[in-house]
Every structure is written in C-alpha cells, then in structure tokens.
C-alpha cells in the first residue's frame, strides 16, 4: 500500500517536472497581444510555418494591454517573445518591462488600420463630420444655446445633430471600453470633433501651459477634465456596446437599416455588399484614403520583440524579418489583401532595418 502511494506521488511529481522541463525549452515562437493585429499576425505566422523549417508560431489574442503584461513579465521561455499592439507602448509599460529584466525591446510598426463608421446598404449613405460624431455620442455636449457650459446630451436623432442628416434615431453599435478599437475611436473621432469647440481646446492648451509652468497637479486636473469631456460616451442607450465581435455588428446592421456601427476597416472591406462606410469630414473610408492619411480615423499597429529571446528561441529573428519584408507588409504584400494599410516606403524601410539589425527602443 505504501509502495503504491510512493509510486503515485512519484508519477504525479514526474509529470509536473516533465511539464516544467518541456516549458524550459521551446521550439516555437510565442506571440500574444492585440485582437486587431491578430488577423495579420496569424497570416504571417502560418506563411512562416509553411515556407520555413521552423514550427508555426503560436498566436494568442489577449488584447494590447494584456499582451504587454505577459510580455513584460520577464525573460525566459515561459514568457512570450513578441506582443502585438493596436497602440504604442506606454511609458509605464516600458518601465515595467525594464523592472522585470526585459531590457531591450524592439518596436516595429506594421501599418495602419482604419476604423469605419458604417450602416446598412438599405439605409441612406451618411456624410458625417467628426463634430457630428462627437455631438451624437458624447455623454455631455456644449449647450447648443451657446456659452461654455456642458449639458447632458439632448440629441435624439441625427437631424438634431446636423440638419443635413436624416431624421432617424441615433443608434450606434460599437465596441466595449475594453477594446483597443474603442480607445482609438474615442481618441480620433470623438476628440477630433470635441476639439472643434475652441473653449474645449483651450482646456488642453491650458493644461500644457500649466505643465510648462511646473504646476503638475493643475496640468493633470485640466487634462483629465479635457479627456472626460471628449472621450466619455453617452450611456442613455444611443450607444450600444455590441461586444468585440465585429461580424456580429455587421449582421445587426444588416437587420436594422437605421443603426450605425463602428468596427475595423477589414470588416467593412469584406462586407461591402451589406454595409457602406460613412464619409468622415468628406473622406470615404477606402484603402487609398487611409494609406495617405486623409481619412481621419485610422491608427498605427505595432508589434514588440524581446531581444533577449532572439538567440534562445529558434525562429524569432527569422519571423520578424519575414514580417517586415516587402512581400509581407509592403504595398503589394499579402497583408494588404487582408485589409492592412501599408506605411509609406521610407517609413517602412526604417522598420525593416530595425528588424534586421534588432535596434532596440531607447525611449518613448
């Protein structure tokens, strides 16, 4: 009986040790991070696995913030080699990395992603300005009677916002606050419209002035006031959080011609028979307009590489080089067919060089 017990304990212990030992040597690249970059990273990973003798990298979709948390947890094969992000790394995140021994991090920008505001083809095509978007969706808006006062958003229909728009109720389906798409939407679309009110813009200017003058507390307070005005989305039912699944939003738009949706450009591109993108400030969301920067709601996409892993995990450097080759993220690269908007040539060349020579990020 006691022999059996010992044997059982030994087996269990051995399994755990074997598992840990296996974790100690990894022969595939481990990638985590943004769900927006996920569709692009997976395509490159698959292509890489098929065309080289390395194993196919494993790509996890954890969100940008979650990715940095895992990435910066330390050096060693149990930690990921690469993290994807739909925004730039924050200073605090780089500090966290350094604190945990992840000294050298290589930053690669891979291209741009547009955020489309779209509705069903059965409805009228909308021509919006960022100011319309802000007024339609902010929690509090400047009093329409004038003056520097905020009131709870009174607008019920698009026509209330802008008389040239149809008189349908404001009903916008979009991502929840945990999503990177939502951050970018608030920062680019809503803030863009918010800034068009001079007195709100003045708050930001005052904040900068205070910073220069050395009054950090005032600067912070003004900045958060500005952000609160510009980034807070109304909660009275006009903006509906539709989850992270963009396909679901497209289906809901198809069923409800009066609703408007906010989602990634690649989903607009794949579903052009069902939904139409609204023009923003007179520019239609198209491949070309996002690429040249004239479409206002677009954001850069990045990935970050741990230099310490390059020599340890086979295939890391090769994967990064394959990602940054022109046939991948160039103008005619296969990622452009998936909806990634390539960077201009000179910018691309800089990142291709950074990837080849593994030039680490010095500061943000």
């Amino acid at each position, binding site marked *: 009986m006691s022999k059996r017990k010992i044997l059982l304990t030994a087996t269990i212990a051995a399994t755990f040790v074997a598992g840990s030992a296996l974790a100690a040597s990894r022969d595939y690249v481990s990638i985590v991070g943004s769900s927006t970059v996920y569709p692009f990273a997976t395509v490159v990973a*698959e292509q890489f696995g098929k065309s080289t003798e390395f194993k196919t990298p494993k790509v996890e979709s954890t969100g940008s913030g979650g990715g940095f948390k895992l990435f910066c947890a330390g050096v060693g094969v149990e930690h990921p080699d690469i993290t994807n992000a739909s925004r730039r790394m924050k200073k605090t995140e780089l500090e966290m990395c350094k604190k945990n021994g992840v000294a050298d991090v290589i930053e690669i920008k891979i291209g741009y992603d547009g955020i489309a505001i779209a509705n069903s083809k059965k409805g009228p095509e909308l021509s919006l300005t960022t100011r319309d978007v802000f007024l339609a969706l902010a929690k509090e808006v400047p009093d329409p009677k004038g003056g520097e006062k905020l009131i709870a958003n009174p607008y019920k229909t698009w026509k209330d916002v802008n008389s040239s728009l149809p008189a349908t109720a404001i009903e916008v389906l979009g991502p929840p606050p945990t999503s990177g798409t939502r951050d970018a939407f608030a920062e680019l679309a809503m803030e863009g419209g918010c800034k068009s009110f001079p007195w709100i813009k003045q708050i930001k200017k005052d904040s900068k002035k205070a910073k220069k003058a050395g009054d950090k507390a005032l600067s912070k307070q003004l900045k958060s006031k500005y952000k609160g005005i510009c980034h807070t989305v109304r909660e009275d039912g006009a903006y509906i959080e539709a989850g992270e699944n963009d396909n679901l939003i497209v289906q809901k738009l198809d069923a409800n011609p009066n609703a408007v949706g906010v989602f990634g450009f690649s989903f607009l591109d794949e579903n052009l028979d069902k939904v139409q993108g609204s023009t923003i400030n007179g520019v239609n969301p198209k491949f070309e307009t996002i690429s040249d920067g004239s479409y206002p709601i677009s954001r850069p996409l990045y990935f970050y590489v741990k230099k310490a892993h390059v020599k340890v995990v086979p295939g890391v450097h090769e994967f990064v080089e394959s990602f940054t080759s022109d046939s991948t993220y160039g103008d005619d690269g296969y990622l452009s067919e998936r909806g990634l908007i390539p960077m201009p040539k000179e910018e691309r060349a800089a990142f291709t060089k950074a990837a080849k020579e593994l030039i680490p990020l010095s500061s943000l």
Partner: protein
Amino acid sequence: MNNQQADTAPRRAIDVINAGMDRRKRSEKRFQLLGKLSIALAIGFLAMLLGSIVSKGYGAFQQTYVKLDVHLDAAKIDAENLNKGNYSGVIKEGLRNMFPDVSGRREKRKLYSLVSQSAAYQLQAKVIEEPGLIGQAISIWVPADDEVDVFFKGHINRDIAEEDRRIKDNQIRWIDHFIEQNRIEKRFNTTFFNAGDSRNPESAGIWGAVVGSFYTLLVTLLLSFPVGVASAIYLEEFAPKNKFIDFIEVNINNLAAVPSIIFGLLGLAIFINFFGLPRSASFVGGLVLTLMTLPTIIISSRAALKSVPPSIKQAALGVGASPMQAIFYHVLPLAMPGILTGTILGMAQALGESAPLLMIGMVAFIVDIPAGIFDPSTVLPVQIFLWADSPERAFLERTSGAIMVLLGFLVLMNMVAVILRKQFERRW
C-alpha cells in the same frame, strides 16, 4: 337551522362537487395546454437553432475545386531538391496559359487569386510522391480561393454593383469560363476534417482542435474519474458524520455552481505561474477542466452509491466481507452505470467549455496538430469562437460546420450515457 335546511333543497357534497366540475376540468385543460405550448415553444426554438446552423453550415462540408493544366517545368523544379521548387510559379503559369489575354500586374494578381495559396503545397506533395512527373504536363484539381468558393456556392449575388463585392467582374468572367469547360466543381471537403487551423478558409480544418479536445479530455478523464469516484466512496460509505464532513459536502455542492472562468484563473495562478507548466498545453487545460468536472462526478457518484440498497452491503458484511470488500465487490459494480453516466455528462460539459481555457492561453492560433499533451493546442469550442470572429466570409459556414461537429460529439456522448443507463442500471 334544521328548519331552514328543510325549507330549501338539501345541499349535498356531491352537488358542490358537480357545480365545480366544469371549472376544474377547464383549469386542468388550461394547464395541460400551457404545458404543451411551452414544449412546442422549446421545440420550435431548438428547430430554429438547428435549422439556422445546418442551413449555414452544410456548405462547409464542400469545397470548390478547379482543374488546372500545368507543365512541371524542370527549370522551375529541381529534381534533386524537391522542397525548394517554384511550385506557385508553375500554378501561375498554368493560369496564364489558360487566359493568355490577361495582362498588367493588377489583373494578373486577380487571376492568381482564383486558386488557393495551398495549391502550390498540394502540387509539391504530388511531385514528391511521384518525382517522375517532372518535365510532363499534367492536369491537377486544386482548391479554389475562398472568395471563389463563396461565389460558386451562390452566396454572392452577381447582380450587385462590382465595387460592392470582393469578387470582380473579370474574375466572374474567368469563373464562367471554368464552368463552361467543366473545370470547376464542388467536392467533399476532406481538408475540413484533416487539417489544422489556417487563416485561409479553404485550407482551415478542425482536426487540430479535435486532437486538442481529445488530449484535454483524456487528461480530465484520467484525473477526475479516479479522484471523483474515490472521494464519493469515502464521503458516502466511510466518512464519519460530523460538522467537518458536512462542511466539505456543502463546499462540493457549491463548487458545482462556481462559474467556470474562476477555475481558469485558478489554473493560471497555480499550474502556470506556480508550477511553471507551459501555456496553451492541453495538459494544463485538462487539469483546469478536472477541477471543474470533479464536483459533478462526485455528486452523481454519491447519488449512484446511495441508490444501491443497503441490504446488499449488509449481506456482504454478514458473510464476513470487510467493508472495503463489500464496497468494491458488491456496491460499486451495482453503482457503476450511474457513476459512468455522471462521468460522461461531466465530460460532455467539459468538451463544450471555452471560458476557463481563455485564461491559460488555449485561445490561440495554432496550425500544427498537437502531438502530445504538452504541445500547444486548442479545443473545438475555442476554434468555433476564433472562426466566428474572423473577417473572411467563408469562415461563416465553417463556423457553423464546426458547431455541427461539436454538437455531433455531444449527442454521441449523451447517447452513450443513455444507453449505459438503459442497459445496465438495475432498479429495486
């Protein structure tokens, strides 16, 4: 009082009953109707769900193939080094020869995108199998691109404006040419059943997820069955009746109702962060699902043990068996069908679970088929979740196809549980 009763007609009990009879019958009927209605509603919803899944998903079991005539040019493919040949060049040449009037970079790219990127790998496999083909012209059926597949299956209307569809007018013209020459057809989609995940819908399959589910459930079964049954036997037959044991019982019952994501968080903290086990491995997934299914197995095993009449155990003890012998030779075999039923239902629940696996990195893009329990792997429900989130239109039907496969496994497992119960369960 007596006088009054004598004046009016005597009210007997039966009259009261008769007066109320109609009302009672009506209410009885109403209740039955309500029951029937709710069952009809449930069946209606089930039919709607299944109908929507099947009507969307049956297309996933077919894939469009096109026939190409290619020349296996020895200049492009080196017989000495078959792995490095320019197979996609051969495929592209075959397409160009078919439509010699196509010119310009943009149009050529559109032409090349008619066939799947996996066509080159298929050609490579064929040549490696028969190296003698080099230098010859052959006909080969290769998978069409997912856009062509969706179009050929009739999911894209050719009457809508060109700019509104992903497939362009010239591509439709080429496809029509294929149709005229009988060079395009739908075939049974074997890739769907024997390939791992892919970002190209036409080369994506569920085999990787099925194998991952198998390993995960194997680990779960090997751990949760012995541990669950042993705890059930101890608690039911040996444990003293005291406050501490009561406390444990209450906790097991509570654990059965804990949201599964909590077990995922626990698994992340203990197995990955503390023990240093690899992320995304089906071993860790199995451990987490073990925690989740243990309460179910313990509770159902205890119910099965309790249903065995005590006289059987007492008879065994009476003829001199030790308590352990009485349980292992007499009680446990009789309780086994019930225990197995509970275990299978617990396993079916584990098979459909995806939330706890989110925390331990099993929600990931994994192409290679896992070869063991420590390899990175994913499971069927996670695969469905990942496909449902993909922008490509062709993944829509593959999502529903994978749901059908998962439902098939679940129905199969539940059927085994029902058969076990019907065949072997004894009633006293």
